[in-house]
């Protein structure tokens, strides 16, 4: 300690003045800390209560109907005389729809990210990048509206051509799984592009320069060096895309028809999310409880995706 500071301390002590803050300051400080602590625990409390509520509301129907009859039966007749609550096709539709949308959307998004990060002239990239981020804010109902007005008629034409003269095919008017897949693929584009692009741009310049110096072409460098180096970020982008597609309700509800069917491209389908949106309004009794089970299954899927994301992010840190 400095001599003068020591002296100051001695003098303060001698004068009998306390070095501790005034009592009023100490009370305010303690109160502020308490308030901040409560705020911080709000999100934890929210996650815990949502988990508990989803499980508490989702389990009773399973209990009552039976695991086999609800999860492994494909017969969905919630309002008939002898109701049947098999949600197998609903689960399969959600999984298939999400998978296909990611399969379709991610390559396009990733290549777009490569274009923005590596190939486009700086000024073009600087113009496109904020535009893409802006687009992430388009509400899902708008995607749904466009899907309904633009995509469904196209799908209907395809359907008419493909199933001409078919006796067994139920015509959907274009509201089918394929429409939902296209809409979802478009919806995840902005998210996947933005995140994988920032991951690509974070790859150190030296790494790419070394690869080029060893004689690799620009494209080889991108695919053998830059993309592997940016993998944690890209995987994060894909997982977020999966989460977004899986949880999307309104847009899908508008374009996918809505009968419970085996998820084939030209079938009208019902997803986990759309079952809730379209039936919650009128469902009663057991039907309503089953919808909560559907919600619980969706929630469990999403939690699985979140865990995956968390694991990836952790590994990326280390």
């Amino acid at each position, binding site marked *: 300690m400095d001599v003068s500071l020591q002296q100051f301390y001695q003098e303060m002590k001698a004068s009998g003045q306390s070095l501790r803050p005034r009592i009023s300051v100490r009370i*305010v400080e303690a109160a502020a800390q308490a308030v901040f602590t409560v705020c911080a625990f709000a999100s934890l409390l929210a996650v815990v209560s949502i988990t508990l509520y989803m499980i508490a509301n989702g389990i009773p129907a399973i209990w009552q109907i039976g695991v086999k009859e609800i999860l492994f039966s494909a017969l969905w007749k919630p309002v008939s005389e002898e109701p049947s609550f098999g949600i197998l096709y609903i689960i399969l539709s959600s999984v298939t729809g999400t998978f296909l949308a990611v399969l379709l959307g991610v390559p396009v998004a990733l290549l*777009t990210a490569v274009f923005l990060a590596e190939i*486009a002239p700086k000024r073009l990239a600087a113009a496109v990048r904020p535009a893409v981020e802006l687009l992430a804010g388009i*509400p899902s*109902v708008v995607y749904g509206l*466009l899907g309904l007005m633009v995509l469904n008629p196209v799908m209907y034409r395809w359907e008419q051509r493909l199933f001409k003269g078919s006796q067994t095919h139920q015509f959907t008017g274009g509201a089918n799984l394929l429409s939902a897949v296209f809409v979802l693929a478009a919806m995840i584009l902005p998210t996947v592009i933005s995140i994988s692009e920032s991951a690509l741009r974070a790859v150190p310049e030296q790494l790419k320069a070394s690869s080029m110096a060893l004689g690799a072409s620009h494209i*080889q460098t991108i695919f053998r060096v830059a993309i592997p180096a940016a993998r944690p970020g890209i995987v994060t982008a894909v997982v977020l895309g999966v989460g977004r597609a899986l949880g999307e309700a309104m847009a899908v509800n508008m374009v996918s028809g809505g009968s419970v069917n085996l998820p084939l491209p030209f079938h009208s389908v019902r997803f986990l999310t759309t079952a809730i949106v379209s039936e919650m309004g009128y469902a009663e009794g057991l039907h309503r409880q089953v919808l909560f089970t559907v*919600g619980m299954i969706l929630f469990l899927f*999403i939690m699985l995706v979140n865990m995956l994301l968390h694991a990836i992010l952790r590994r990326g840190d280390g």
Partner: protein
Amino acid sequence: MAGKLKDSFVLILICLSAFLSVVLLAGIIIYVFVKGLSVIRWSFLATASSAAKGNVGIAGNIVNTLYVAVLTLVMAVPVGIGAAVWLNEYAGRSRWVRLIEFATETLAGIPSIVFGLFGMVFFGTTLRLGFSVLTGSLTLTLMILPLITRNTQEALRAVPDSYREAAAGMGAARWYMIRTILIPAAMPGIVTGVLLAVGRIVGESAALLLTAGSGYFLPESGQELLYKIMQPGGTLTIQLYLSMAKAQYDVAFGIAAVLLCIIFFFNLLAKLLARKWDLSWKQ
């Protein structure tokens, strides 16, 4: 030579993908505005729909949207900022920090329809708030909490430690330092976070459908506006959905254009401010 050919092929693929993304996304916007702007006129924006007068208008829905947005922000912003302050300034490196950050991350990943189900049962049934603007706002509060918290955290992290050391060196107590130095220094980041949250709220539909319900009436007096908090109210997104279900497609496109204008305005504002204040993590 074969390598070169492959390279150019991949390059073409990359450019095509980029072109596709941009055309697709630009196409969405242009289509909505071309279809929607013809519907928008003063009476569409300033009056509520009324079957008696044969009038179609979305003023009631605009009021509901504003109501939900303001109410949600009033609840979410203080809590979100408080959480970020605790995580960054008080908690140190405890296990709780990791747990709460994990919870925040999880909350951000939960789809809006699940928030809707939870809000409907918890706020609507358990707390007996029913289908109301308040139920909707409480639900959305949970939904945007992570957004506010994370943005504020980033902003606080960007405040140099020398500020904290200088303040502490001058004998400032912690809350005093937070109030007078850290929050003002972090304000740009906080404001952009709030603007992004407004975009999220205005664009939200699934969660509100299950919690705030529908309804397009325009409150006629201040008192009615006050009571509205306990009554159902459909925001613009909900009205768009309902119009579409009733096959009123031009109304739906009109609302879509209004929605895009509002959302782009706030997101653009957030971007411009981030650039003006030089928030590197946002650019």
